[in-house]
């Protein structure tokens, strides 16, 4: 199942970094999508356009965080997510339950990737928009116990 965290303010890079690190600690979280208006290119030197570190993995932050979409394994994780949000988002937030991340490969994917579509693992589906390269937008963060 998916949940959406909707903060009442747009988040800066520091808060995003703290929030994502706390969310990454939660057992039941499988995938995360950071969604929001795009930041200007690096040449514009926007203070929020920087590399953030999530569990040691470097992620190039390209958007000003407006929503965080999470795929979770169990419903119990929602309470942990709320707790993490309360610590990091003092200005308020909402958590919605629903379907937010695409789970199936589509015809558009087929046109985009062609024969290589079969090589794309299911976990990578729905993590970015159609116009972008998957490698530019998606980062795999390894869990310690899986290593």
């Amino acid at each position, binding site marked *: 199942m998916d949940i959406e965290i909707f*903060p*009442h*303010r*747009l*988040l*800066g890079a520091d*808060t995003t970094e703290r929030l994502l690190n706390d969310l990454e600690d939660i057992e039941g979280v499988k995938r995360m999508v950071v969604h929001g*208006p795009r930041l200007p290119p690096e040449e*514009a030197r*926007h203070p929020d356009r920087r590399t953030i570190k999530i569990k040691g993995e470097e992620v190039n932050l390209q958007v*000003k965080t*407006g929503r965080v979409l999470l795929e979770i394994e169990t419903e119990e994780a929602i309470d942990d997510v709320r707790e993490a949000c309360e610590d990091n988002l003092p*200005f308020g937030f909402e958590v919605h339950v629903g379907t937010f991340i695409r789970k199936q490969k589509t015809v558009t994917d087929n046109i985009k990737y062609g024969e290589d579509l079969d090589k794309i693992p299911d976990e990578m589906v729905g993590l970015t928009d159609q116009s972008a390269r998957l490698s530019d937008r998606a980062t795999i963060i390894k869990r310690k116990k899986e290593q």
Partner: protein
Amino acid sequence: MAQFYPGTTKVAQNRRNFCNPDYTLEKLREVSDEDVVKILGHRAPGEEYPSVHPPIDELDEPEDAVREMVIPIDGAKAGDRVRYIQFSDSMYFAPCHPFIRARSYLWRFRGADAGVLSGRQIIETRERDLEKYAKTLIETEYMDAGRTGIKGKTVHGHSLRLDEDGIMFDMIRRFIYDKASGTVSYVKNQIGEELDEPVNVGAPLDEATLKAKTTIYRKDGEAYRDDKDAVEVLHRVHVLRSEGGFCPE
């Protein structure tokens, strides 16, 4: 006495205050004349006012009673160009908003033309008068450093969520919040050209002050439906307009 706006809530009172030319607006910051000219970006500070026609005194005008009755504003007398300043007000409790701006401009500023759009509001008048009016608009409670933007173009942002510091979104980052000093500075003029030196417009007001000063009805502030007087007048206007426009007999 002129009836500016109905309603018993604080929001209605604030709206009346803006529209009433006898009410003195609170001054929130000091911005020098030179800085106002820089933010406007129409001419360099100290430069002569370019003109589009000779001074009115030198013009050979036809005899006309109205021309004699109406005293021209300074800019018109000198033949200045018509120039503008445009503001964008956040929906999150900005002190003023487009149509109250327009109504109040027409009450307070002579010889100016006000244009209202959903997310921005423009005032156009002769250049030297504009600078005078712009100074009032920037220094008084018309403007909050965080929730109001001087945006001559690329105005997007009034309905977006604020950023963490309570500053309205600005696509081309004309104004920047300095966390250390807690103040906002304009680093670009209203159309996004870099300024030589930033112009400081002071600290944004806190949430409670903004809620007390705002002219925007909001469910999480003062809701419009709770203002019985204002709703009653609105209903009356609506009914009269509908009946009058439909079939008067």
